[in-house]
């Protein structure tokens, strides 16, 4: 599978985490632990750190980028972000992290119908957006 690269970053070899509902990073993800903190979210309590995180959508606050930047600086970011559509508010966190000198996970765009294929334990993503399922 080949996906559009939204933000360049380091490739990944990790297990997938496909969220089944949109999430607001601010208030929805704890920047100090990487755990999903929104008690109403279906994946509440799971860690997004080190995962190929598939987001069906993002909602809410304009501070999502601040939370993502905090995760990157704390080494708690996902290994890769896969979005249904580009999201300027969230992905600014990666763009700014690069300006601050951090290496960041890659962000890809993929139709959310394809997300089910990324549920596996061993997903490789190249820095050009090539996705390989083991």
């Amino acid at each position, binding site marked *: 599978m080949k996906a559009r690269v*939204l933000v360049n970053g380091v490739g990944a070899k990790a297990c997938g985490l496909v969220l089944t509902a949109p999430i607001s990073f601010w208030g929805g993800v704890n920047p100090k632990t990487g755990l999903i903190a929104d008690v109403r979210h279906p994946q509440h309590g799971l860690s997004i750190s080190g995962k190929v995180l598939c987001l069906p959508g993002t909602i809410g606050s304009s501070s999502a980028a601040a939370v993502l930047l*905090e995760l990157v600086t704390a080494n708690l970011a996902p290994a890769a972000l896969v979005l249904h559509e*580009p999201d300027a508010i969230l992905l*600014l*966190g990666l763009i*700014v992290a690069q300006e601050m000198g951090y290496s960041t996970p890659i962000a890809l765009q993929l139709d959310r119908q394809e997300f089910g294929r990324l549920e596996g334990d061993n997903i490789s993503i190249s820095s050009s957006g090539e996705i390989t399922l083991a």
Partner: protein
Amino acid sequence: MPLELTAEQQAIANGIRGEGAAMAMRIVAATARLMEAPSLIPIASAHIDGALYHGDSGTLFAEKLVAGDARVAVRATLNVGSIDLTGCSKNLLPLHERAMARRMMDAYRKLGCEPSWTCAPYQAGHRPARGTDVAWGESNAVVFCNSVLGARTNRYGDFLDIACAISGYAPYYGFHRPENRRATVVFDVSGLDPAFLRSEVAFPILGSLYGRELGDAVGVVAGITADPGEDALKAFGAAAASAGAVGLFHVAGVTPEASDLAAALQHQPPLAVIRVTGAMVNDSRRRLSTAVTMDRLDAVAIGSPHLSVEEFDRLEALIAGRHLKMPLYACTGRHALAALEASGSRAALEACGVVIVADTCVVVTPILPDIPGAVLMTNSGKFAHYAPGNTGYGVIYGSMAECVTSAVEGRPILGAAG
């Protein structure tokens, strides 16, 4: 279509105005490529939401811009910070967070931003002209700027707002393009009781419903026969933008791009029509409250968005010199605080037990005491939305009159006149 930068924009990215401005321009250009914008456009002003502390990295980002000699190229007002610098209210932030939040607020001042510290900059003298392109953050300010002022902004998140202000440019996409400002959904309130539509709670309740129904779509409210006034539109937009990703609404016959319904629709048929019923209104009102019982009340909070001087006048008239049995937190900006001090209203309100909160508000920073099971009453759709998650307080929603009566009596009382 690849992004094309002008020679001047490229020169800024290359550092002609210093490393801070270069970093800002690179961030704006990277966002434009991400959103597939063909070009950057000059902006007339910015409203910066990025000075609220969420962690040390945000402070270090702002200080990196300062170290790179960055300055805003356009007028830039500041949204709320995490600390009340006027000293009106006390903050419960731990020491490290407090120091980093203070450093962050200082850094944004050094970048040349105005210390307005308000989520209602449009009532503090920052009102861009209709049709001008601006880069505003803070969801309620974005929606007011687009909808009530008719200026053009996307929903600018943290970091991008200040990057646009420093570079002086924004990516050309979204609400900057006139064709994307067309209403595609009609939100018809003509079937509702006219007495309800005249009440203060109508606009927050309808805004909350509108946000849930429309998400990020542009809609036009039809069936409003009299101009509801700026504070009502402010409350509608804030509630809509917290319940959904609303960035622009029109009100037929009221807002500047909706001289009538057809104008808001840009003379095309709507994709959907929502006929609002009394049952939908009652459901929306019910959803604003989360408290399961009406047997306790610990605080009252109003002022999201920040109260205007006119709203303070109403508050003072409703209190009528009575002593409050519990704190009533009234959140506002320095623009209103200065007027309250000049008129003597600040002293009068504080003598009754009102706690004025300036520069910040009770849902973005810890001001409310930590009390297990506590309940808050508010007339703000936005406070009602965010208070349970951010403060731990349950919410009872009511009008300003009900908020005042409850604070005077020390227990929740709904049904107060006014």
